[in-house]
């Protein structure tokens, strides 16, 4: 099984991919929950617009998303320049940029899962919490949030898995620099571009699948636990 030996650079890509996928998932979670709540419950002007915006990364070819990210979050882009200047936050050609790209690509999936769970909540339970003295924020924290855990877990695993597979937007936005922005999918892509690269691509694909499946199993286990808690005697 010599061909299964990962090179140092490949190990780097594995570690980086996990890091990128993890942080993409974690960073997008609060915003994902907030937007899911807005879309599930809010009645406001521009809701359709917001909804469209959230779905955009799904609709656009990844290359286009990546290019748009490059134009806005790049060092020369309006947001990128602003963030770099005022917060020292640089996305362009950094792993943070890869995480941003992955977060954005997974965002519609995450939001939709959480939103579905929130919409399934019996609002009369929330009403009950309200009469007991909980204001909107507390109702959200003590009732809505715990009851939407199944959706949150689903959203997280979707975001993570998507990040493990995301390639088009990432490579377009932050390129494919080993140790910095070369994630597993980028590395796999590179292998597919040269003669004799198939084995390498297969090797990395297997690694990627193993990682994602582990995460998936973990998420199923957590979801089962949460579900059992919700319906437990």
């Amino acid at each position, binding site marked *: 099984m010599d061909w299964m030996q990962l090179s140092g650079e490949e190990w780097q890509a594995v570690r980086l991919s996990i890091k990128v996928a993890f942080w993409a998932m974690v960073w997008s979670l609060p915003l994902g929950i907030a937007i899911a709540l807005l879309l599930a419950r809010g009645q406001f002007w521009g809701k359709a617009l917001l909804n469209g915006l959230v779905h955009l990364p799904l609709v656009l070819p990844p290359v286009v998303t990546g290019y748009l990210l490059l134009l806005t979050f790049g060092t020369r882009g309006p947001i990128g320049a602003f963030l770099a200047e005022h917060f020292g936050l640089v996305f362009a050609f950094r792993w943070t940029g890869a995480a941003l790209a992955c977060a954005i690509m997974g965002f519609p999936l995450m939001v939709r899962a959480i939103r579905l769970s929130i919409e399934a909540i019996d609002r009369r339970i929330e*009403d009950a919490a309200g*009469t*007991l*003295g909980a204001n909107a924020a507390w*109702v959200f924290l003590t009732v809505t949030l715990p009851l939407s855990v199944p959706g949150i877990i689903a959203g997280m695993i979707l975001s993570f898995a998507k990040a493990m597979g995301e390639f088009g937007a990432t490579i377009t936005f932050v390129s494919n620099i080993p140790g910095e922005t070369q994630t597993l999918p980028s590395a796999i892509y590179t292998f597919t571009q040269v003669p004799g690269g198939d084995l390498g691509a297969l090797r990395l694909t297997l690694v990627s699948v193993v990682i994602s499946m582990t995460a998936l199993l973990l998420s199923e286990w957590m979801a089962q636990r949460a579900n059992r808690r919700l319906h437990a005697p």
Partner: protein
Amino acid sequence: MTIEVDVSKRLGKFELDLSFASSGKVTALFGPSGAGKTSAVNLIAGLARPDTGRIAVGGTVLVDTSKRIFVPRHRRRVGYVFQDARLFPHLTVRQNLLYGRWFSRQRSHSVEFDDIVAMLGVGHLLARRPGGLSGGERQRVAIGRALLSNPALLLLDEPLASLDDARKAEIMPYLERLRDETRVPIVHVSHSVGEVARLADYLVVLSAGRAAAAGPLDELLPRLGALGGFERHETGSVVDAVVEHDGGEDGLSRLASPLGSIRVAGSAGRVGRPVRVRIRARDVLVATQRPDGLSALNILAGVVAEIGNGHGPSIDVRVECNGVSIAARITRHSGAALDLKVGKPVFAVVKGVALEPGGPSLS
């Protein structure tokens, strides 16, 4: 503490158009299924907004559409026992019970957790989640949750509907104590005249979204039969009295009342305590001569004040004893056989155990 309600609200084709002002400690909402009781309670709790109108409790305005006032639900400090328990499925029974405490401003609590848990008999359920609770268990936890939230107003929507009598008999006295010892006004939705008569001092009879009648309980209760919507044999009279002699658990107590001295089986509590007795019309016999050797404790002399038309085979006879009206339901046949006429002196024969100052439930 007054509860003033003057609201209108449209729900689909149903129109609630309710107006009453209760000065009672316990206001009963009474009426057939679909009359709008829950809708009214929701408006008081702030779960729905009236289309127009005003609700005030103890002088505090909760809603006033003309002044654009709407106190949000979480600031109203209501303890609402919902018709459907609405427990939090993700929290244990203990966490459900304590949920409201979190948000109550006072940290010292007048009602004690252990007492409530014991009264409701939910001690063995504390660690469980609501998932597998039985219907009655849920309802009890819901009652506990509302009571423990340290409410400024208690809204009870058929809280005892699926409880057995023994359990009711433990909860009713607690509610009575609450009524008598705290200043928390209670709005109580119930189908049971027994519950209502025992707890309430103000009655609102709802019918198709409107108050068919509203007023102090003692005025309304004798007329209940005529208002319809519930079992006729529940009609009766309420008399306020004071304990004159306490005979202990196994003995006979004596109450002083406008009717004169009334004998009651069992303990009536300490001497001087104000109590209420309800005399159901169906528990009163009318006799033209004082019966002897009869196991009835109270035989009150009076005169026939009114003979109602009644329904079907029975008629309601109002007997005035010492200026207090007592309703008796007898058969039309008996009325004729005894030759009852207004003004005729008669005896109201009241079965002793039918008088209940604070014992087990009446229903």
